[in-house]
């Protein structure tokens, strides 16, 4: 069956090769026109940071979050803190002047929701006080306010009574902030809020208002995104760098300017096509999918190198370029397409991660690979058929041929039992060590601050400063209490009392910084109505008693909606590390399960910590699924290609080892398993399997011609090994340039992908032959066998053991 099938496939491939060369002129023109059209379209490609794309939409936490987030928009907040370095506290004319200026400026940030701008100067910020003469309440900073000693003392006293210390004013009274929320759509233009523009505007405020003893810190999701996009611009530089290095390597390898330029051009084609198609299907480049052009380019170079190599050998053996091109297509159509399919599989399985940004990454990358099959496998032979080799390239090749006993011959010793055993022992040691180390890998973000940026970035420094100055921070977990059939849940002891108890319980949970809930706020108001006496700071179960604190249930405070149908309990966390999130969420769930309320439901979890928790869960669930999927798919693909389970194992086992090593490396480098790093394994496996496929396919080819294992492996390495190493190098460099990215997640991805690409080729060179030897892969005894290859393997096996 085996041979018959191969023949049928091969004759189909031969037919295409023939057709390709016959129609090379019109096809070439079509490809060129397509390139021009898509190149033009590529100029419309836009960056798209999209917050929503980071949310695992189907996760139950996110369903609750999406149900309610429009009511409580807190997720997209900007905090601008002014900190005073001079003497005394913030109550001095200069500081208050700047704070007012900052408040005014924030109004003009594009996309800002002007009703949500809060600072000490906002009319919404009031204080309440009971005096002997009755209840008094007013804005914190009077409208006709003079910054003399009396006025400042008044403000200082008002602020203390407003309950804003720790919130709008720093705990040590040496900083104060402006808070505001961003809308998804800019109300002025009706367009999607441009975070880059927001970030630029915020930086302008910082530039204008800092100095003279005042520092400004700015944090918020939009600022992160703005900074990320600025960081993304560096990607262009990295691309250029990777491009130049690849170019040099290519030239060094091929000694032919024509082939170098050809490989580069062919590798760039799918990138251009892809960038051209993305705007047409409504996709943008986001911080993750920006990875795809690099990958496609690198993969494209590797396949172009393989093809030009085969073509060159063919031409050197005396064929004319167009026959050489047809032969190259014939020889490489199967392993090349299988390898590309494996790549595509790798990209496809990452779509198992239930997060839109990863889906898009998968779609974009699959599309890129599909385009690569067209450009590399069809367009490239067409170009090759028109090319004449320079003499230098010819000479170089002769030089190579003169030394058949070179490095590859030495390496091929691994295909003999002695060295194979050493290789195996090394592999087992690595396996044990890597497995042990990989157990300490953590999920989610590690460290505080935003994971997108480096720890010492301006943003993360700002974040650390704000966290230390105030009681609030950016890590918030929202718990929603939905009540049905209750008229006014905030005046209903069953609900509000339970919110109060939840608030209390969560305050005792490790990892929680503070809680903001309507119950807590109501208690402050009740106490306020009773002369600020802490002996009244409580909720009572009668509706009358509860009414005393009902001003707290003002929907504008963002802790509940109208009628308290939904109550938003905001749990401020120390950080958003997975251990914190898991602990806080499980404690919250414990309380919720133990304290059911009729007609009211506590739902987890919103805001950024809710998103992070859901994301981590999605990532953890996806990890196993993804690995099982990618390895099953690739094993099946290898089995179909090689028709040998031994061959499949020779390719797959080193890949598994490298995956475990990758996890071990992550835990060593303190990189968490998260949205950005989870796809790395799938990508690394999808691309890494290429080497094994190319090498084993060639090895099998020689085995069929009755060469012994070492000779076959030597053949494989001579024909494809150099190209494989070269490819691994170019790809490693292509993604390795990212290690210098100002964006932490890009650097992480770059380091890990570089590791995967490089170590996988080592696996294919050093482990594959050893495993093949130990597993008893041997030359075919009956080349015309109609039996399955595993039977043939067995037969050869018996033969060997008999001998």
């Amino acid at each position: 069956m085996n041979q018959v099938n191969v023949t049928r496939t091969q004759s189909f491939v031969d037919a295409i090769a023939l057709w390709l060369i016959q129609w090379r002129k019109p096809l070439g023109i079509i490809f060129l026109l397509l390139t021009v059209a898509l190149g033009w379209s590529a100029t419309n490609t836009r960056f798209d940071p999209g917050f929503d794309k980071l949310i695992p939409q189907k996760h139950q936490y996110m369903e609750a979050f999406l149900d309610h987030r429009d009511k409580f928009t807190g997720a997209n907040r900007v905090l601008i803190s002014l900190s005073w370095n001079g003497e005394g506290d913030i109550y001095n004319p200069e500081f208050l002047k700047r704070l007012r200026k900052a408040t005014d400026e924030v109004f003009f940030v594009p996309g800002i929701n002007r009703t949500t701008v809060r600072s000490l100067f906002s009319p919404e910020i009031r204080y309440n006080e009971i005096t002997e003469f009755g209840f008094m309440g007013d804005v914190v900073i009077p409208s006709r306010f003079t910054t003399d000693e009396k006025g400042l003392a008044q403000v200082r006293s008002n602020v203390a009574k407003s309950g804003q210390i720790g919130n709008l004013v720093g705990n040590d009274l040496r900083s104060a902030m402006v808070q505001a929320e961003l809308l998804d759509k800019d109300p002025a233009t009706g367009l999607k809020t441009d975070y880059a523009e927001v970030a630029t505007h915020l930086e302008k405020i910082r530039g204008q208002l800092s100095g003279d003893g005042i520092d400004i810190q700015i944090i918020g999701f939009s600022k992160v995104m703005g900074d990320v996009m600025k960081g993304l611009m560096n990607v262009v530089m990295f691309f250029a760098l990777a491009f130049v290095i690849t170019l040099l390597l290519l030239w060094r390898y091929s000694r032919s300017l024509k082939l170098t330029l050809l490989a580069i051009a062919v590798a760039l084609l799918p990138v251009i096509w892809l960038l051209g198609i993305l705007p047409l299907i409504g996709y943008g480049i986001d911080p993750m999918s920006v990875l795809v052009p690099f990958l496609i380019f690198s993969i494209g170079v590797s396949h172009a190198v393989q093809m030009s190599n085969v073509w060159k050998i063919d031409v050197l053996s005396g064929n004319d370029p167009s026959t050489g091109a047809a032969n190259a297509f014939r020889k490489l159509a199967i392993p090349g397409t299988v390898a590309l399919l494996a790549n595509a599989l790798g990209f496809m399985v990452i779509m198992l991660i239930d997060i839109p940004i990863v889906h898009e990454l998968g779609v974009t990358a699959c599309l890129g690979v599909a385009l690569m099959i067209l450009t590399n496998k069809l367009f490239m032979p067409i170009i090759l058929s028109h090319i004449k080799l320079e003499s230098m390239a010819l000479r170089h090749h002769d030089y190579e041929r003169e030394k058949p006993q070179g490095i590859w011959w030495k390496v091929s010793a691994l295909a003999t039992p002695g060295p194979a055993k050493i290789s195996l022992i090394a592999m087992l040691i690595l396996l044990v060590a890597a497995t042990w180390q990989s157990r300490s890998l953590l999920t989610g973000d590690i460290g505080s601050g935003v994971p997108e940026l480096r720890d010492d970035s301006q943003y993360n420094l700002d974040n650390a400063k704000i966290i230390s100055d105030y009681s609030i921070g950016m890590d918030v977990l929202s718990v929603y209490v939905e009540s049905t059939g209750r008229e006014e849940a905030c005046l209903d002891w069953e609900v509000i009392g339970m919110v109060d108890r939840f608030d209390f319980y969560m305050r005792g949970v490790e990892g929680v910084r503070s809680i903001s809930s309507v119950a807590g706020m109501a208690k402050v108001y009740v106490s306020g109505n009773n002369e600020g006496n802490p002996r009244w700071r409580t909720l009572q179960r009668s509706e009358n008693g509860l009414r005393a604190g009902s001003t707290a249930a003002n929907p504008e405070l963002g802790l509940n909606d109208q009628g308290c149908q939904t109550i938003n309990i905001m749990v401020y966390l120390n950080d958003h590390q997975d251990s914190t999130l898991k602990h806080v969420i499980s404690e919250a769930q414990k309380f919720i399960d133990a304290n059911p309320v009729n007609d009211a439901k506590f739902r987890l979890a919103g805001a950024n910590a809710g998103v992070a928790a859901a994301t981590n869960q999605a990532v953890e669930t996806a990890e196993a699924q993804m690995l099982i999927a990618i390895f099953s798919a690739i094993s099946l693909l290898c089995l179909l290609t090689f028709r040998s389970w031994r061959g499949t194992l020779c390719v797959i086992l080193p890949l598994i080892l490298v995956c475990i090593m990758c996890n071990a490396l992550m835990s060593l480098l303190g990189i968490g398993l998260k949205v950005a790093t989870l796809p790395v394994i799938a990508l690394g496996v999808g691309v890494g399997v290429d080497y094994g496929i190319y090498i084993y396919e060639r090895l099998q080819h020689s085995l069929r011609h009755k060469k012994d294992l070492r000779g076959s492996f030597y053949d494989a390495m001579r024909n494809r090994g150099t190209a494989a190493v070269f490819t691994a190098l170019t790809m490693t460099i292509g993604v390795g340039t990212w290690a210098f990215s100002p964006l932490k997640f890009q650097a992480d991805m770059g380091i890990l992908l570089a590791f995967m690409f490089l170590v996988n080729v080592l696996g294919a060179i050093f482990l594959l032959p050893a495993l093949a030897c130990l597993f008893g892969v041997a030359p075919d005894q009956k080349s015309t066998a109609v039996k399955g290859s595993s039977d043939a393997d067995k037969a050869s096996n018996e033969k060997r053991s008999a001998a």
Partner: protein
Amino acid sequence: MRTLLTVGISLSVIIASVFAFSHRESVPLADSRLPVDNMNITDLTPSGAGLLAAGELGHILLSTDEGKSWQATNIETKRHALITRMAFKDQQNGLAVGHEGWILRTEDGGNNWQEVRFDDKNSDPLLDVKLQSNGQWLAIGAFGKMLSSNDGLTWQVETAPNNTDWHLNGIIGSDNGRMLMIGEAGTIFKRQDLNQTWQHIPEFYTGSFYGGLHLGGSEWLVYGMRGNIYKSRDDGQSWQKVPFNIPVSLFNHIRLSDQRILLVGQGGFMFESSDNGDTFKPLTRTNRGTITDVEQLQNGNLVLSSDEGVFLQPLPKQQASNSKNDGVKS
């Protein structure tokens, strides 16, 4: 043999990978606890069992190590109402009172508490409870509420003196049976001994009094809203304002072992008097919201309760000179 080797190697890699990629537990965080440092504690009371702290949502905590660590006590019926005061008859027998007329009783120094009274219809709080010299308990509260009990188990509603419906905030006793009852809107009642009725002292101040103490002899001190402190030298018949210009409300006091009087209250302020309440000056300002109670530990240091939890504070040294009061306004 070769097949065995193949299977063996493959299995070892696969088992290693299953183990490597199996679920990883994250580092567990500390167990949840009562937020002793972030809850409203209204009262600290020493008992035979240790030091008790009570307050938010009806929690009563016990510390047996001088306030360093706290454990929940066992409360039979949880009502989640704020406890406002505790009082003990001896080392073991005591009461806790709170909102919604809640009264709890302990017979073992505060390890276990039983509910003796709860009124879920009428939410008005009880604000103080005291043992009178005849062994009878007296509890007072909002809107002129007064209750009395002989054994702490059954309670009779009493008519407030003068039929007052002002909030009654505190009962101040002396060692010889004289008592003051203070409250809202400058309310002060005094009783010379148990056989007499409460005598109304005409209001000389319009704000609330939150507490006071007997200074010895016929001298008394009351304090309350916005830094108002008054002293009487004639057993409460006439009162003189103690000069004090810091407008923070004062909620509790302590007479230290060295005879200094400390007043505590809003804004985390502590004030001291070394002259038996003739003058007060700021001693220190803690970074807690409102201090509600203060006790002195064996080692002389202080344990304070606030609406932001219990905390320990070294005893501030006596101040040599008068410091300026300016600039410390709440």
